[in-house]
């Protein structure tokens, strides 16, 4: 039987609560902000790992970003992935959805023989949630999105997933290969296995690929491959709240509460 090869697309993001905009330059201040694996991608990791527990096979991690993200990605290895592929090149920088999905798709082609590609629902920084579907389009393969559960028919090479739908659910089945996006918080990501920590830090666990290695069409990558242009950036205005404390006996508080709610 052919081994199952899954790729999990992982983004390393700055922690959202630490990010600020420089009022002079209108650019994000990334200095001193700590990075983590995009939390929804951890749910994608867990779903892929569960399939590996059940059917065996190999999990590769695919990520795009500077080499400094390496340590954050080792976490995925220590959770049970087999290898990390990092697409790292200044030419990839500034990519929007179109350029990002193209670049990731080229990475997946180069890894080769992949049957399942897992993505988190969205990234906490950009939150576009459109990468999985775009990726499937570039690769010309099927998709199962926003899944809370998955299983595969290992003989027939089918993927079957449960997806939340309007006040209910649907169960969809597609032939592999397919891109799968995983509903955020639909599972409990496992902890790192400290016994394999040293293993996960071995240099050979990581492969770096540049634009040249991928032989990409440079018109399609990075800023120049991105149709969208950011023309302004700002911190969202936060509403200031009254912060008025209601005090007194419980009955008095209830009365004040009714007044606030305009209930006679």
């Amino acid at each position: 039987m052919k081994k199952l090869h899954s790729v999990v697309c992982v983004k390393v993001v700055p922690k959202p609560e630490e990010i600020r905009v420089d009022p002079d330059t209108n650019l994000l201040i990334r200095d001193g902000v700590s990075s983590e694996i995009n939390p929804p991608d951890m749910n994608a990791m867990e779903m892929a790992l569960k399939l590996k527990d059940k059917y065996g096979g190999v999990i590769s991690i695919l990520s795009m970003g500077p080499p400094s993200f390496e340590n954050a990605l080792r976490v995925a290895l220590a959770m049970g992935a087999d290898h990390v592929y990092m697409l790292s090149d200044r030419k990839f920088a500034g990519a929007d959805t179109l350029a990002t999905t193209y670049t990731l798709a080229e990475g997946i082609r180069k890894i080769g023989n992949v049957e399942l590609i897992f993505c988190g629902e969205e990234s906490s920084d950009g939150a576009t949630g459109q990468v999985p579907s775009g990726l499937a389009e570039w690769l010309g393969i099927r998709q199962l999105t926003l899944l809370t559960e998955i299983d595969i028919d290992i003989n027939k090479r089918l993927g079957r997933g449960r997806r939340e739908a309007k006040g209910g659910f649907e169960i969809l089945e597609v032939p592999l290969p397919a891109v799968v996006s995983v509903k955020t918080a639909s599972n409990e990501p496992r902890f790192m296995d400290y016994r394999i920590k040293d293993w996960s830090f071995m240099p050979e666990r990581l492969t770096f690929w540049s634009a040249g290695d991928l032989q990409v069409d440079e018109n399609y990558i990075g800023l120049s491959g991105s149709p969208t242009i950011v023309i302004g950036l700002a911190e969202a205005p936060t509403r200031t709240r009254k912060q008025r404390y209601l005090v007194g006996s419980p009955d008095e508080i209830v009365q004040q509460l009714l007044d606030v709610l305009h209930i006679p």
Partner: protein
Amino acid sequence: MVASRYTPAEEQKTIWVYLEQENGVLENVSLEILTKGRELADKMEWQLTGLLLGHDMGDISSSAFAYGADVIVFADHPLLENFTIEAYSDVIEKAILERKPSVFLLGATPNGRDLAGRLAVRFRTGLNADCTELRMEKKTGVLVCEVSGFGGGILALIEMPSHRPQMATVRPGVFEPKPRNHNLTGELVELNVNLNPDSIYTRVIERMVGEQVDLARVPVIVAGGRGIDGEFESLRKLAKLLGGAIGATRPPVDDGYIPREYQIGQTGVVCSPEVALCCGISGAFHFIVGIEKSKTVISINIDPDAPIFEFSDYCIVSDVNEMIPRLINALEDIQETTHEKVT
């Protein structure tokens, strides 16, 4: 630079809205986008077109006209009865490439996102996701989208001057749906559908849809956190008395006290009620995002240092499990008195 399948020079001066329907009823988000699309089209003096796919949909078009569409382009075919990404994206691709609209808007719903992601790649165009505001530059016909990142903390304005269609998905609940006139009508254009069953790979094995709580739209939300110990029954009672609905933070959802569709916050629903009553909620950043647009926030928490109080208009430092029954009693008393007066 990658070129889109048609250029700004070839565009038709129209704004297209993908109309999402379930069992012959248009989704709220589609009405919201139609309303906003009407405003943009009026400013540009362009046409607003609704794009509708399905099978045996009944009389949906009249509500789309009522909310401002000039034209409805529709496809009716048995293979479009259930949403499948292959059938829907193929039909829409053809319709768009034939008619070349300048702008194409979809709801940021599960299916809307799937379609938008595929189609933007197919058209080699840009895609602004989960937009919270839209405007058109009158002189250039360029669409400017406001999107938020980092859990709503950062706003960005994004445009795509040289690619068409200018695609965006719009976050449900951000625009107010306003019908103009229920007797309005417009032009109906039927698409020729040529679908091959073999090109549809997705098999819908089971599908159960039901009544969905639309938390984005209720006037009062009574939200419970870890502090209520899973006691959602009394919250439900309270919400009913206040004419609202219940919501939750992530911990009670994770603990199985309440289904995930009730989760408020960054990974759940972003709501904008008149009143959000937060019960036993500490106020994690991810939750606050979901109630920030509420007109009034009231919080009850026994911990005086709970961060939620910083984001509240009215703060009650008290045991929520004692406060809620008292509030319910008071409201029931009031209801009885009013009832007696009437009878």
